[in-house]
């Protein structure tokens, strides 16, 4: 540390000790109220003129945490991804709007129509299959009784 820096540090400490307000004394070092979030955010983005910035700077001078925040933001660091659990929970704060009644009725109607179509198709397919199997059985049965050549008995297998 150079002599100038040492001198500066000494003066700064004396100023801070002298200017720190005792309890109940308004004004002075450390008594600036916390600025509103919007004002502080605007300051952090250098969007305030000197007069607007003065109360923010008076507050910042005594809030090391906020100075660190300021440094972090100006270093242009990107935030790491948030835990998935946080994202899931936060998304759950706003519920999806309930669907209108007519849309729900339409949904149930489409389910019922689907079931009806599936049922009818299944019934018809099953019925058709029974008819065919009966016809085949009749033909095959006839062949087995009469033989493939008809009723003269030449083709009888037993």
């Amino acid at each position, binding site marked *: 540390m150079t002599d100038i820096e040492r*001198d*500066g540090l000494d*003066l*700064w*400490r*004396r*100023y801070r*000790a*002298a*200017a720190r307000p*005792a*309890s109940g*004394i308004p004004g*002075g*070092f450390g008594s600036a109220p*916390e600025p509103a*979030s*919007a*004002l*502080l*955010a*605007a300051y*952090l*983005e*250098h*969007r305030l003129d*000197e007069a607007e*910035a*003065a*109360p923010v*700077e*008076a507050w*910042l*001078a*005594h809030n*090391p*945490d*906020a*100075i*660190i*925040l*300021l*440094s*972090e*933001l*100006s270093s*242009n660091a990107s*935030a790491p*991804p*948030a*835990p998935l*659990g*946080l*994202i899931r929970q*936060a*998304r759950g*704060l*706003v*519920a999806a*709007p309930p669907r209108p009644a007519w849309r729900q009725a339409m949904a149930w109607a489409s389910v019922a129509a689907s079931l009806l179509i599936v049922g009818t198709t299944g019934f018809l397919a099953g019925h058709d299959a029974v008819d065919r199997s009966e016809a085949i059985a009749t033909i095959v049965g006839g062949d087995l009784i009469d033989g493939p050549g008809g009723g003269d008995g030449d083709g009888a297998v037993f």
Partner: protein
Amino acid sequence: MVQDGPLDIARLRRGDKPAWDAFVARFAGIIHAAVAGVLQRTGRDLNEASDLAQDVFVRLCKDDYRLLGQYDPARASPATWLTVVARSVALDAVRRRRAPSVTLDDAPEAAIAVAAIEPTRLRIPAGLLSPRQELILTMLYDRDMDPTEIGATLGIDPQTVRSMHHKALTRLRGHFAPPGGDV
């Protein structure tokens, strides 16, 4: 600064679910990082970060999105504003969880005694240093930041930082110089 696009506050305030989901996905990392930063600096358990970040989201949509409605895109980007809000919520939580207060009867006498006001404390004239000069001296001497870092942080030239530092010390030297002595 964190670069980010505009925020559709109107859709969010209407309770638009897809807009809210996109908002959460976009800013959860920033909010979580801001909250974790406060916890780290105050020596708290970092496992609380997710709960506190969730508190931030709760506050944003509470009372018909009142807090979210306070966001002004003309003043700051959403990322910066949300960082400030998250930091504020986290600090509030940290303050609330501090050691319970002690009743006046249980407090030791020394703890409640009012310190005598030293005459020197009243001798600092208002406006001896400007808020910016105080801020620069705080950053230089309390946070060990150099003029280049300070300039980048405050959005001013490092040479301006050095100049303001010099002027501030000159004023302090003049103030603390013994009466009749050299400045």
